[in-house]
């Protein structure tokens, strides 16, 4: 837009003044964010009408200047223009910094602005990828990344599982906020709307220590949209519809910003789906609806800024009706039936069993930058998670929730990114958090998770240093203190059976007959660390090596469980004696890249001491019949595997992609395979572009998981008055899915862009069951889905 003006400026002739003016003023223009050189920046000396451009290395110079003070005006295509006052003495050299902003809404992320350590490696889903999957959940979206799978409970509750680790072993960062949303539960989906993210980064080890030291599985980082510092009003509307679930989603966003640095935005998403279907039947009561509203107001200047933001998400999720069971004999019938026992006609209604979850985040943050101390960030975040789970109940309790948890989190953090000579980057910070969980007693059901308070205090420091042009070294350290104080009613029999009356007599408060009131309190202090190197062998080859140490404290479920877990139809027992899990990880990354081929190979080995797993330990008689008892246990385990990505561009139109991932997990001593390890998966895809229309055909093959622990058990079946084997461990067969995508633009005008996408998932309507889906015992996974979306930006 202002290019002609700049060119004009360049051609304005300059006049040297008739006096002794022989000083030189030279300098370099750098990006404020990462100190990268800015080439093609236009520098003008206002008083003299002289201008020049920076070269490839960001350098410029003016000669024959008189001594004195001048105003320098610097502009760059992707930066905010800025003026500087300079004093020219004899031969002056200055380093000037500009704040990079983004001309395009869908810009590619700057490399180098990595969230974790460079050596840790990361996978990025860019704005395009996020936008294309706007209707999907976070879990479904990131499961497209090599080495990441969806650990799910039905088709709307999907958690990201990184190399087989999920729930409290994966930290989810949403717009700088660490999500605290009862993430320990296998059937608790993350409460985030991917539409609010500009891009999503996955780190497959514990190295992003500025966020937490306990992410021994890895990190999922949702990064917010960057708003340009200029006078603009833009927006986005995205509509989608699909046949499976007979529903759709709508997302809108409106962003206003000014050159002075003020900005504000409002975004919202609505999703509504009815029952989904498997190839041969309706999946009764699997509909969902979801509402998101997010807004922010902020001010962003070159050196300081602040932001207030609020976002709220509400999810109403139906749980497959046929999965609600009353014990071993029901499980026997359900598992041995080829179809779900309850199949009704399609409906949009969501009946019990269902989940109603709302999550709200209120954040206030501010930053200042200085030449001396670098960037300083201060933030406060409040989160409120309300979780209601409804079961099928009797009598006056019919419409009451069986689980009613309210978790509130307050967090403050302070981060410093000072600039020190000799270091490429340096970051340190402290954070404190207070969590309060309340379990409503009016449910009429024994609390699954007790009331507790948790206090966290963390400190970290991380640094990156170049040893040479090709070799970079990075390291990080963190220390975490955690205190948990709870009130818990135990079954008296269990309290003594597990020997707690001897180990923890100080926790006992009051004996109520069959129950005992206790107040368990624990303190944990954990160090974590990471060190690594990234080595560019030459233009094409790069090698990453990363070693990390992480520690995760037992979560409330692992500590306190002692009762029926309805959705799993089993009794689960935790252990108060658990110690933190300690994970030691080695990740290697090799990438090869030329203009046609890119290839990466990422093997890893992870040893986890005192890994907490849950396994069957017996059968319990109750008046409702037999239930299988699963107890948590700590044991040393090893995980290893590799991810491989290959991309080949045959020409401008045709390309090929392959993703391959393999993970193996065993108990260290007994070599028993770990449960729920992702089966080997391979995706092959062909991409073809024809006149702006991109086509992609994808083959997704998942092998059968042949390594699994035997958790089968025998139970008395009244119908036959005999004891039968109940097979809850044999994984489902291998499956192959074909997916087809078309997408392209519709160009109406320059200021109004429309793009469309047509997706056909599971093209051949293949019946299959997924080992990592908790519903696999009762029903097939989703059948064919035809999905159409239209996105407009303006």
């Amino acid at each position, binding site marked *: 837009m202002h290019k002609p003006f700049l060119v004009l400026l360049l051609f304005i002739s300059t006049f040297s003044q008739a006096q002794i003016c022989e000083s030189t003023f030279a300098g370099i223009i750098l990006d404020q964010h990462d100190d990268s050189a800015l080439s093609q920046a236009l520098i003008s000396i206002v008083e003299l009408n002289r201008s020049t451009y920076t070269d490839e290395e960001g350098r410029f110079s003016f000669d024959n200047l008189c001594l004195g003070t001048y105003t320098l005006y610097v502009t760059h295509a992707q930066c905010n223009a800025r003026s500087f006052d300079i004093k020219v003495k004899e031969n002056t050299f200055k380093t000037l910094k500009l704040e990079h902003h983004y001309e395009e809404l869908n810009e590619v992320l700057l490399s180098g602005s990595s969230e974790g350590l460079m050596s840790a490696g990361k996978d990025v889903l860019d704005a395009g990828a996020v936008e294309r999957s706007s209707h999907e959940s976070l879990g479904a979206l990131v499961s497209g990344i090599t080495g990441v799978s969806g650990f799910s409970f039905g088709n709307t509750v999907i958690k990201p599982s990184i190399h087989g680790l999920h729930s409290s072993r994966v930290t989810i960062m949403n717009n700088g906020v660490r999500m605290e949303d009862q993430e320990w539960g296998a059937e608790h989906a993350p409460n985030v709307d991917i539409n609010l993210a500009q891009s999503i980064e996955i780190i497959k080890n514990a190295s992003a220590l500025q966020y937490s030291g306990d992410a021994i599985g890895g990190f999922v980082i949702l990064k917010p949209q960057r708003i340009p510092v200029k006078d603009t009003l833009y927006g986005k509307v995205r509509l989608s519809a699909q046949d499976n679930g007979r529903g759709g989603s709508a997302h809108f966003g409106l962003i206003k910003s000014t050159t002075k640095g003020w900005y504000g935005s409002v975004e919202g998403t609505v999703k509504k789906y009815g029952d989904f279907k498997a190839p041969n039947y309706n999946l009764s009561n699997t509909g969902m609806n979801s509402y998101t509203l997010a807004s922010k107001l902020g001010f962003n200047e070159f050196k300081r800024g602040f932001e207030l933001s609020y976002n709220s998400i509400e999810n109403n999720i139906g749980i497959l009706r046929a999965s609600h069971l009353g014990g071993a004999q029901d499980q026997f019938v359900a598992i041995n039936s080829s179809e779900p026992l309850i199949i009704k006609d399609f409906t949009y209604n969501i009946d019990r069993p269902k989940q109603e979850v709302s999550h709200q985040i209120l954040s206030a943050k501010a930053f200042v930058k*200085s030449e001396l101390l670098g960037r300083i960030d201060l933030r406060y975040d409040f989160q409120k998670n309300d979780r209601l789970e409804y079961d099928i109940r009797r009598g006056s309790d019919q419409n009451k929730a069986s689980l009613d948890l309210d978790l509130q989190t307050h967090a403050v953090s302070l981060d410093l990114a000072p600039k020190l000579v000799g270091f490429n980057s340096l970051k340190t910070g402290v954070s404190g958090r207070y969590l309060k969980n309340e379990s409503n007693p009016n449910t009429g059901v024994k609390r699954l998770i007790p009331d507790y308070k948790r206090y966290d205090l963390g400190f970290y420091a991380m640094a990156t240093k170049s040893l040479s042009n090709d070799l970079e070294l990075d390291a990080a350290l963190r220390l975490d203190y955690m205190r948990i104080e709870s009130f818990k009613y135990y079954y008296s029999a269990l309290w003594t059976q597990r020997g707690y009356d001897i180990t923890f007599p100080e926790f006992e408060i009051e004996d109520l007959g069959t129950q005992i009131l206790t107040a368990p309190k624990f303190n944990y202090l954990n160090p974590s660390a990471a060190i690594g190197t990234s080595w560019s062998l030459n233009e094409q080859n790069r090698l990453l090596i990363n070693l990390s140490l992480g520690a995760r404290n037992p979560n409330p479920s692992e500590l306190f469980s002692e009762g029926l877990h309805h959705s799993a139809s089993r009794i689960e027992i935790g252990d108060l004696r658990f110690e933190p899990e300690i994970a030691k990880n080695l990740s290697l990354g090799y990438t090869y890249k030329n203009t046609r081929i890119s290839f990466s190979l990422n093997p890893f080995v992870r040893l986890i001491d005192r890994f907490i797993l849950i396994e069957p330990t017996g059968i319990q008689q109750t*008046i409702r019949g037999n239930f299988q008892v699963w107890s948590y246990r700590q044991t040393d385990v090893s995980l290893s595997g590799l991810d491989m990505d290959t991309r080949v561009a045959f020409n401008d139109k045709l390309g090929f992609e392959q993703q391959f991932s393999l993970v193996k997990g065993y108990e260290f001593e007994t070599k028993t395979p770990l449960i729920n390890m992702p089966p080997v998966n391979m995706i092959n895809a062909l991409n073809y572009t024809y006149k702006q229309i991109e086509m992609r055909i994808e083959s997704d093959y998942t092998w059968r998981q042949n390594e699994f622990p035997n958790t089968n058990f025998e139970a008395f079946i009244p119908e036959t008055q005999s004891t039968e084997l109940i097979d809850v461990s044999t994984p489902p067969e291998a499956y192959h899915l074909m997916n087809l995508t078309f997408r392209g633009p519709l160009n109406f005008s320059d200021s109004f862009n429309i793009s469309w996408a047509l997706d056909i998932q599971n093209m051949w309507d293949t019946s299959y069951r997924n080992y990592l889906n908790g519903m696999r015992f009762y029903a097939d996974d989703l059948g064919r889905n035809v999905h159409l979306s239209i996105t407009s930006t303006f």
Partner: protein
Amino acid sequence: MNNSNNLNTTNSKFLIFTAMKNYVLYSFILLTGLLFTACSDDDTPPAPVDEEEVITTLIVTLTSNAGQTIILNSQDLDGDGPNDPTISVSAPLSVATNYTGVIELLNETENPAEPIHEEVAAESNAHQFFFTQSANLGLTTQYLDFDGNGNHLGLSFSLSTTSAGQGTMTFTLRHEPLKPNDGTLSGAGGETDISVTFPITIE
């Protein structure tokens, strides 16, 4: 000339440094303040949960035509807790005898005990008892009561013994079964609310 943007001014450096120092200070005050307010929360334990739906006790009273009463009792006061139910049968059944049976369900975690069978009777359309026994046990059962739609309920039933022997008999209460059904547990589906197996002797 405006000097405020001069990069070299030590004055501005000093100002920034002071600002930083204040930031650091304030944030620490904020942080510790927050933790202290958090700590000062009251520490009263939450109320115990009234477990409303629990069925602790099943009592089957069999009365023979001759007026003899046999009681089958299963009691599990800690519900899903680790203690097994205690099961008792007051006397052996007599051969070639007709009994009428009545089922009572209690929640004895409440005081007085809550009669759950009344709730089951009130929601008769969503419930049904099933009677199953080992093949070698010579007895037959028949429903004596019906739900709102005229389908079997099973809170009262008749039992006839045919031959002497020993075996087991199970009383199963299903919630939201298929109704009407073929009389088998697998045909009825639904969720098991109660499943109690008694050792039975007929002599």
